[in-house]
């Protein structure tokens, strides 16, 4: 995938309103000049919302990939929940990853003819990545200690919550039978907290952020994943790896409902106890590691392409040129 257009905005240290404002102006100009037939956006970032708004101002239709995720709290996660709610209001086509997400959209009054359950494209990407790439991931296991992969980077987790997470990790490492591997987010708040709790502890390996392809392989070799990331909650079930979700709320209840993830929040004891239960109770582990994925079957991309094309041509036939 090579970009045809690159706004080259610096995101490091930028506030959402700064990057959003610049992106809105630049995307608006690009859409005006090139008149795309449709703009597809994905997820819940500032780019997602602002690109939708820029398209709307130019009367270019918008398709939203991974639509309908909700916590129901506009400020959590911040600012993602607002980004996706606002994108929904603008979009012409909504590609919901699950039935639950589609229902959330219908409950908000979105026209049912525009909502399509496609599965999540992250599953397509996962299979594609494992197929096309070699395992170059860092930290090949040197002994048979089980790898406990940890990722934590949400804005809402910064501060005291993060300390709880790191204290739990330290206790888990002290068990001696697991290797905690934690790729660390470059965010200075996260780094400061991590350095206080994790440096120089046996069985904890802090690594630099890992790119997607090596990360997929790292994930596939893990025994258990602790994360506050949404994407990983969706990917891990396809690899048969249980997930402990270190968040208080989730917009992905499907993983929990399917029994492949447990919501543990950011409390030290809860994280520690739930992780130990998975490490010590094989029956419990097997029940969570069943490789059934409520988020998709790996064919979402094809469905989205088909629906988009059909929609564009039926619109053209009707002579709707907005």
């Amino acid at each position, binding site marked *: 995938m090579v*970009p045809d*257009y*690159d706004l080259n905005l610096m995101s490091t240290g930028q506030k959402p309103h700064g990057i959003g404002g610049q*992106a809105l102006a630049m995307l608006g100009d690009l859409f005006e000049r090139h008149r795309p037939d449709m703009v597809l956006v994905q997820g819940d970032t500032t780019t997602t919302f602002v690109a939708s708004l820029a398209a709307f101002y130019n009367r270019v239709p918008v398709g939203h990939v991974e639509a309908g995720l909700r916590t129901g709290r506009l400020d959590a996660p911040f600012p993602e929940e607002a980004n996706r709610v606002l994108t929904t209001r603008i979009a012409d086509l909504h590609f919901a990853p699950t039935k639950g997400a589609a229902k959330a959209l219908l409950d908000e009054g979105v026209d049912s003819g525009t909502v399509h359950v496609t599965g999540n494209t992250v599953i397509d990407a996962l299979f*594609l990545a494992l197929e096309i790439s070699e395992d170059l991931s860092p930290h090949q296991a040197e002994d048979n200690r089980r790898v406990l992969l940890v990722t934590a980077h949400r804005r809402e987790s910064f501060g005291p919550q993060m300390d709880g997470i790191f204290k739990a990790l330290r206790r888990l490492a002290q068990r001696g039978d697991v290797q905690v591997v934690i790729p660390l987010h470059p965010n200075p708040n996260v780094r400061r907290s991590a350095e206080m709790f994790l440096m120089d502890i046996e069985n904890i390996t802090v690594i630099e952020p890992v790119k997607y392809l090596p990360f997929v392989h790292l994930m596939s070799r893990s025994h258990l994943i602790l994360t506050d990331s949404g994407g990983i909650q969706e990917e891990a079930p396809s690899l048969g790896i249980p997930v402990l979700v270190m968040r208080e709320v989730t917009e992905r209840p499907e993983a929990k409902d399917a029994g492949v993830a447990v919501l543990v929040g950011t409390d030290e004891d809860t994280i520690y106890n739930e992780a130990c239960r998975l490490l010590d109770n094989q029956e419990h582990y097997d029940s969570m590691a069943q490789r059934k994925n409520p988020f998709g079957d790996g064919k979402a991309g094809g469905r989205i392409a088909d629906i988009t094309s059909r929609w564009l041509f039926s619109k053209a036939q009707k002579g709707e040129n907005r």
Partner: protein
Amino acid sequence: MLHRKKKNVWLVFGTRPEAVKMAPVYVALKEMEDVYPSICITAQHRETIMS
């Protein structure tokens, strides 16, 4: 068959997770006869994800 003008679909994103989740859509759109995709990125996450 009437000749249909190809439709240009832009995929717009800024972060690596968005790129990963858009890649399968891009691959699928590229295989279609009457649609062609373009990619527009906003931020500094431009390493090639999949070719």
